């Protein structure tokens, strides 16, 4: 009996914690449909009627769909580059015994632990020297070198790919690059998919670097655009509009999460077990 009560209490606590995770989003959705006045005076979970007028305020302040589009324009190519070149680098490091291999791997390990802010100033200095301020190039091209993902994929490859398979392909006369494309990439694809999800989320949510590189509003990514909500007194006076703008930035991610939470969670688990 005592066990049953304890068990019920545990479930209750777990549910309370789940509510704590969801409540802010729920309030956000409800308040996005209410007027500033309603929000100021009461809390409710019944949607209001001001969605259209809130949307009018938001759309007059900024073009949030442009921000969406810009974020996709950066996140998709950056993720693809990370996936392809990390796989390639991991394969090169895992399956070939060339001179300097251990040194390269050691440098990769060191850079995995170096905090991103350390290169921030030098990075901006380089970007402005190359006249790439307001360009998406410095936000996309560096994705080719992702040390953490190379590290993970190297481990993954060493545990899934047998060198004998490569030897067999070589005896059949296959070229090294086509061995990589035809044999290695398919074997690695579950690991690549796992890592790509994490890379995409990281790109999509990134704020500091795009904020530094981009100064024109029409170039802003979604997080940078959302951050400009502070600068309008119009919109600050209307809480409903803020909730709506934030909701528009959040809802697509929640929808995607509903469909692929399993993969997202396995990508995090993988990050921890690499050790």
């Amino acid at each position, binding site marked *: 009996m005592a066990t049953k009560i304890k068990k019920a209490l545990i479930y209750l606590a777990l549910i309370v914690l789940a509510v704590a995770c969801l409540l802010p989003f729920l309030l956000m959705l409800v308040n996005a449909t209410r007027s500033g006045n309603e929000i100021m005076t009461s809390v409710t979970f019944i949607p209001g009627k001001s969605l259209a007028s809130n949307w009018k305020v938001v759309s007059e302040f900024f073009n949030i769909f442009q921000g969406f589009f810009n974020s996709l324009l950066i996140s998709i190519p950056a993720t693809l580059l990370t996936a392809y070149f990390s796989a390639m680098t991991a394969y090169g490091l895992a399956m070939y015994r060339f001179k300097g291999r251990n040194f390269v791997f050691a440098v990769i390990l060191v850079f995995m632990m170096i905090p991103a*802010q350390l290169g921030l100033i030098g990075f901006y200095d380089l970007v402005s020297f190359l006249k790439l301020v307001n360009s998406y190039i410095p936000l996309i091209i560096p994705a080719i070198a992702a040390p953490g993902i190379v590290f993970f994929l190297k481990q993954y490859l060493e545990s899934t790919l047998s060198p004998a398979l490569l030897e067999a392909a070589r005896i059949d006369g296959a070229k090294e690059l086509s061995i990589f494309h035809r044999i290695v990439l398919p074997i690695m694809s579950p690991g690549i998919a796992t890592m790509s999800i994490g890379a995409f989320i990281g790109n999509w949510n990134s704020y500091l670097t795009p904020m530094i590189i981009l100064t024109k509003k029409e170039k802003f990514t979604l997080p940078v655009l959302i951050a400009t909500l502070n600068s309008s007194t119009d919109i600050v006076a209307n809480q409903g509009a803020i909730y709506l703008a934030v909701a528009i930035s959040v809802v697509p991610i929640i929808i995607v999460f509903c469909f692929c939470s399993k993969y997202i969670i396995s990508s995090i688990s993988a990050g921890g077990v690499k050790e």
Partner: protein
Amino acid sequence: MASKGQSTVTKPKRRKNVNNAGYFFILPFMIVFVIFSVYPVLRTLYLSFMNYKGFGEPTPIGFANYARVFQDKFFWRALWNTVKIWGVNIVVQLGLAFLLTMVFSDMKYKIKGLGVFRALYYLPNLIAATSVAFLFKTLLDWQYGSFNQILMSSGIIEKGAQIKWLLDPNIAPYVVAIISAWMWFGNSFIVLMAGVQGINTDYFEAASIDGAGRWKTFAKITIPLLKPILIYVSITSLIGGLQMFDIPYLINGKYAAGNPGGSLQTVVMYLYKFGFATGSTKQVGYASAIAYSLFLIILVISIMQFKFASRKDD
């Protein structure tokens, strides 16, 4: 004989050629890595020894920037703010993650619904920190925010005695810490849980046959076996946490000043103020020295953490 000698000569040669293909595979990575990762880090180091305002020629000034960091009370205040916010956050974050790991790995209660709960707990981590900042900035607004309204309508606080979550320098840092913990506990829980699931169940069975209780099993079996993962979680959290920027920067609408009362100004916000602000406050050399000072501090704490965590082995 001659043919045999020939084959031993050609065979290693062919292998060497094959291995050299490795250079080809890592080449694109190396080029981009050197240009966009290694060079900026070294360039920042170089600039940290320079007097440089972001234009014109940098002039060398030795360790003057570092001496200035050391004496700059606002740097130390920013560091203290960052450590305080991170410290409260990590206690809550790891505490919750630990409790959840214990609950879901318990052999006796066999709690169900791991998949659903794990997904719900992880959800806040998925949302961009900028959106989280605005969501809470609006929810926690002392006059209009839903949070104070819930407290008032449920009678926890009196009307007129609303709590100034983000305006009181004695409260705001802890609010930011709790928001960070809210964002990250699900992540830590997933990582710890993955670690527990990797532990051989024989250990748990043996412990239960020996009559070890729940806490004892957790303390003597789960925690020691999770140690590598714990080190991983705490060090990555430290590296990420001491670089905290987005939420404290945006949540009060006062940007790099870190209002209220500078209590939310983190080290990276302070660095941003000198490195990227426009106008006369821009001092790129000094900002670089701040970046390296923070790096050295993170390095020292990480090493201490690592040493402390591995010492218990003996």
